[in-house]
């Protein structure tokens, strides 16, 4: 058995996958103070439903994959470790200055982010390397010892070391680290040249500090979790989700805590690949609409896009992570009228408390969910399977007073406007991961997850002209499902700045071999046999004198052959696709900045259980009809409502229709048709393009 566990702010989601392919979903309340308590509660509930003791149950579990937000929350709430920083004398404010950016230029009330290390704990060290890594000034060990003295007096719990140009020579950082290890034994320590040996000082110092800031917290959490699992006799493998979409053993995660900082939504794209590859797709766009935010990601060749320019709370995190774009749009997004009389949605959210007006928990501002209710997409008596009755009248009154009257619209028109504006906000999130990166969204199936996602899916797809939408069976616990499908993954980088005609091919190959050996070592401690290891080679390239690079993947053969020409061929078309031109014809020289290697250890994936064919007729799932707003017709119509649990493999539902499940409701617009596939997921496609898509569902 395998268990995927996604700890969220309110609920902890579980997907239990049996060896025979059956699976079950569990949700328990999260326990933010010590998330392992909620996690154990969930395991206990699972054993209870099987009438087993927890100890007997856990013996049958081979793998637990766990996504945690403890590091994310520590940064967002400033509850990480008290951290001290050693950095090159004269440059200790780089961390706080963030290169002098004010993100809101016209807003004089906008303040800088509080630094994770206050200035008095940023200790200057006399030492200096030049741009090539050659020593200009030796490290003054006395400075390090003095800093240690301060750190001890101030009860510092974690230390970060980042010196200028250390990407090219780590000896000074190592020398300082030796002293810290000796003088402050047991304290969490991050050395920048180990964590991220690549050029760009601010990126490196910020990432290094983030790692130390969250390190002790992650470490103590994982130690507590592993000991609890030990106590109940768990003898399988525990794996932790990373921001890069891969998983990692707890021991390695403890030393590189920053790799988990944006792991929350990172399992989504992996799940998206699983659900689309069944139908033979290599590419897809995944979206996950929650209460306050909407996450979008793009996958190409079954590989999610990776960025090294991520941020958390406006702090740079330069480790590779999935390029997920988050937009402030969710079921709780509030509608309002601006001074010019235009309707806006969000980014303020009613959250889960007080929540939208219709929850009747004190919310006064009309939210997206209120509009969904007025428009008939939600049934006031069947929200969360009927557990939460929705107050239709209050939602109506709030929309009337705060939106409709101000626009001189009817309540229905205003609700339709709210629905349309938020769909457009979400569509621009999708555009950001696709169009802005040079991809045409029309060529990608859209995988839609999250409780509110399937209500909005057709209209988002419509705005982007996306012809096919896939709503996974596990859409409400999408990320927990994705965790079970993730592989082990370790990313490495080395900076080697050189024009292409000057590259010393032996040094080039040696750097790759070094990274490969390190990856093999880590994966062997994670018990991955060599035949299950894959490598992804990539280079960060640019035209000579440009400042920013384009990451281009290369083959192992090209690296081993040392054929520079073949290494650079992928660069020109990629540059053109992204930025509208290339300089291949002009013969402009190309230069190398960074070399990257990802080492991937393939894990066993859960099987999907296949249902038997049930014919096209969905009649037995028919629940009744109701009045629902049809955006293209701009009016309400009576349409069919189906019970999602009763739809079987092969059943076809024509839009307009509503399909209800406990945790989600799917709105099918008139131009789409839904086919329920053999794994219980829904595929919606444009009726007039059925020939292209139907075959994939029923192949």
């Amino acid at each position, binding site marked *: 058995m395998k268990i995927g566990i996604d700890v969220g702010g309110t609920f902890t989601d579980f997907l239990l996958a049996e060896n025979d392919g059956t699976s079950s979903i569990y949700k328990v309340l999260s326990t933010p103070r010590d998330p392992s308590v909620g996690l154990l509660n969930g395991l206990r509930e699972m054993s209870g439903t099987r009438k087993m003791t927890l100890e007997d149950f856990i013996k049958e579990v081979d793998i637990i994959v766990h996504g945690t937000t403890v590091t994310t929350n520590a940064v967002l709430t400033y509850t990480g470790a008290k951290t001290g920083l050693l950095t090159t004398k004269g440059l200790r404010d780089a961390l*706080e200055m963030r290169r002098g950016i004010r993100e809101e*230029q016209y807003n004089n009330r906008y303040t800088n982010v509080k630094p994770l290390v206050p200035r008095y704990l940023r200790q200057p060290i006399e030492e200096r390397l030049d741009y090539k890594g050659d020593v200009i000034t030796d490290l003054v060990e006395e400075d390090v010892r003095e800093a240690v003295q301060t750190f001890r007096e101030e009860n510092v719990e974690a230390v970060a070391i980042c010196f200028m140009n250390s990407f090219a020579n780590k000896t000074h950082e190592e020398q300082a680290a030796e002293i810290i290890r000796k003088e402050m034994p047991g304290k969490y320590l991050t050395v920048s040249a180990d964590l991220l040996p690549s050029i760009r000082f601010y990126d490196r110092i910020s990432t290094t500090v983030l790692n130390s800031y969250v390190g002790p917290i992650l470490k103590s959490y994982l130690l507590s979790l592993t000991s609890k699992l030990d106590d109940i006799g768990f003898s399988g493998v525990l794996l932790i989700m990373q921001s890069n979409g891969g998983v990692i053993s707890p021991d390695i995660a403890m030393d590189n805590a920053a790799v988990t900082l944006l792991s929350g939504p990172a399992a989504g794209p992996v799940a998206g690949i699983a659900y689309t590859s069944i139908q033979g797709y290599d590419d897809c766009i995944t979206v996950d609409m929650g209460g306050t935010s909407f996450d979008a990601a793009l996958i190409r060749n079954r590989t999610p896009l990776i960025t090294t320019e991520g941020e958390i709370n406006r702090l740079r995190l330069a480790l590779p992570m999935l390029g997920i774009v988050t937009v402030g749009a969710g079921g709780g997004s509030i509608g309002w009228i601006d001074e010019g009389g235009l309707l806006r949605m969000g980014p303020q959210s009613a959250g889960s408390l007080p929540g939208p007006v219709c929850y009747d928990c004190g919310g006064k501002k009309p939210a997206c969910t209120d509009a969904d209710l007025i428009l008939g997409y939600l049934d006031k008596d069947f929200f969360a399977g009927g557990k939460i009755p929705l107050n239709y009248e209050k939602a109506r009154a709030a929309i009337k007073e705060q939106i409709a009257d101000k626009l001189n619209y009817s309540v229905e028109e205003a609700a339709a406007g709210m629905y349309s504006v938020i769909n457009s906000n979400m569509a621009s999130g999708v555009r950001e991961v696709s169009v802005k990166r040079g991809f045409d969204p029309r060529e990608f199936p859209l995988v839609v997850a999250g409780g509110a996602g399937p209500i909005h899916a057709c209209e988002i797809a419509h705005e982007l002209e996306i012809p096919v939408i896939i709503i996974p069976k596990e859409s409400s616990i999408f990320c927990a499902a994705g965790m079970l499908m993730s592989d082990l993954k370790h990313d490495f980088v080395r900076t080697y700045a050189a024009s292409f005609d000057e590259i010393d091919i032996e040094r080039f190959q040696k750097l790759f071999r070094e990274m490969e050996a390190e990856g093999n070592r880590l994966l062997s401690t994670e018990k991955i046999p060599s035949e299950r290891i894959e490598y992804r080679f990539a280079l960060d390239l640019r035209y000579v004198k440009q400042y920013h690079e384009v990451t281009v993947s290369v083959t192992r053969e090209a690296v081993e052959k040392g054929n520079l020409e073949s290494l650079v061929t992928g660069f020109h078309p990629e540059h053109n696709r992204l930025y*509208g031109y290339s300089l291949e014809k002009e013969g402009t020289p190309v230069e190398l900045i960074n070399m990257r290697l990802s080492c991937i250890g393939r894990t066993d994936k859960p099987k999907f259980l296949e249902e038997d064919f049930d014919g096209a007729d969905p009649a037995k799932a028919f629940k009744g009809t109701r009045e629902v707003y049809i955006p293209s017709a701009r009016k309400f119509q009576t349409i069919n409502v189906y019970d999602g649990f009763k739809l079987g493999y092969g059943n076809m539902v024509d839009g307009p229709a509503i399909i209800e499940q406990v945790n989600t409701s799917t709105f099918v617009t008139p131009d789409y048709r839904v086919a329920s596939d053999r794994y219980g997921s829904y595929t919606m496609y444009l009726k007039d393009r059925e020939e292209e898509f139907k075959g994939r569902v029923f192949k």
Partner: protein
Amino acid sequence: MTEIDKILVSVLQRRFKSITEEMSIALARTTRSPILCEAKDFVTGLYDARGKMLEQTENLPILSFSLGPVCEYILKYYGDEIYPGDVIFHNDVFSMGNQNNDVAVYKPIFYRDKLVAWAACKGHQADIGGNVAGGYNPNATEVWQEALRIPPVKVYEKGKLRKDVWDLIFANIRYDIVAEDMRAEIGSCVVGERGLLAIVEKYGIDVFESHKDYLFQATEKMMKAEIRTIPNGTYHGEANVYYDGRHPGSRFKIRVDITVRDEEIIFDYSETDPQTNGFVNGTFTSSASATVLTFLQMVNPDMPHNDGMIRPIKIIIPEGTILNASYPKATTFGNHLCPPNADSIIRALASAIPERITAGWNQLLCGLTTGTDQRKNAKFVDIVFLGLKGGSGATKGVDGYDHIGMIDASGGVLDQDYEMFEQQTPHLLLEHEYWRDSAGAGQYRGGLGIITKFMIGSDDTTVVTFGDGDVEPAFGLFGGKDSTLNKINLIYPDDRVYKTTSKDLVENVPAGTVWSQRAGGGGGYGDPLKRSAAVVAEEVRNGIISFESAKNDYGVIVDPDTYEVDEEATGRARRE
């Protein structure tokens, strides 16, 4: 007339915004000059068929409010000879350009053979010919000593490169990277064109036109509502400009009368001093941009940036004044008259909207180095962005922003990354830290200034300085204190110190010379004795306020061992 779908108006506004952002990303990622790709000294925008602004992304707003006027000029200039596939360059300050170095690209967007819109962008190019590499020539008195003038010129016509025109332009510019960076500007316009055409194809030209007009009206309404919150009246403000680069001790006044009448605001600079006989002169568009961007900081920051936004704002700047020089005066310094212009506006409106204005910002004092990087035997030019960023003025309830830089960028222009700086120039960075006690004291203190030192790495380096703030510091308001002065010194290897003036050109600077720069802080707001003593103590612990300043400026006595507030002594000091 098509029926207006108000929801679609909101959707289109968002879409225009995201297209100009896409254009901005493309430009930042592909340009070579650190001025563009690291500091983002550029703007990208979309304009309608008449040249009216649809939306802009303004990394450096001082460039931005001239793109529209130039677009209108280009339309008039070419008449009906604008074709699909054209690409037009422009920098000429006597046809609505703002600064010679800010070179714009305009690309007309055609849909079914009809001109429907323009994509444009403009960036500060590393060189534009003229007497001095990099363009800042304090000895210039006429435009030809400063730059190659590019009135509108087509470098592509009907999709075909005009090779002779291209070569003529770049034969007059020192650095190869400028041609590459202009290609990047064209690429950015292609990105904008793709995005805008997708909209027109989807909704049709009639819907696009009518909804765009409605958007302009809605935004105009929004700006009028903002203006209505300012009490009616006429408000007078003044600020000084020191030294024209040629006459030591010279001083000029900017004078503005701001009249607010219900939904309209008029900025009248008629009483401003006459133009100088140096390069310290503004152009109409650089000065008007300064006015607009300063005013935008006093209204709802969330307003869409389009033609409707600027309609209720009237700006009067007579030709022949220091803010609107007449042909053929030198004007390269003109963008940098924004800080004193902003000061005059802030001073004027301080009494009318005290809760919305800031105290004075640190004025720009900037430098650049050019020469040959002997490590690579290649030319380099580098504006020292990381050294110029002082603090902003405090406002009611909020301290000034530390190390933000001049008000014309307001934190949109970034420091070079330190390690990239050492790769791309021969220099070695020695210090780049907050400058203790540089901020103007106040209940809300000004933003901190910074200290920057680096060792110049190649012989025969040329140093240019341009700016202000070395005579008069950023001013405090409502009891807040003034801040500290800017300066740039060159410490030669023989320890000789050369104190640069605020507009200087120093040649043959040897390797090993230390560039030592101080960028001052911002002005304080409100009585410093009312500042939280605990916050002052924390700032002493962090070394950004000295014990002496805590005592003398804030009346806060901090224990030197524990960094705790000595409550009793503080109470006494604050009473006295």
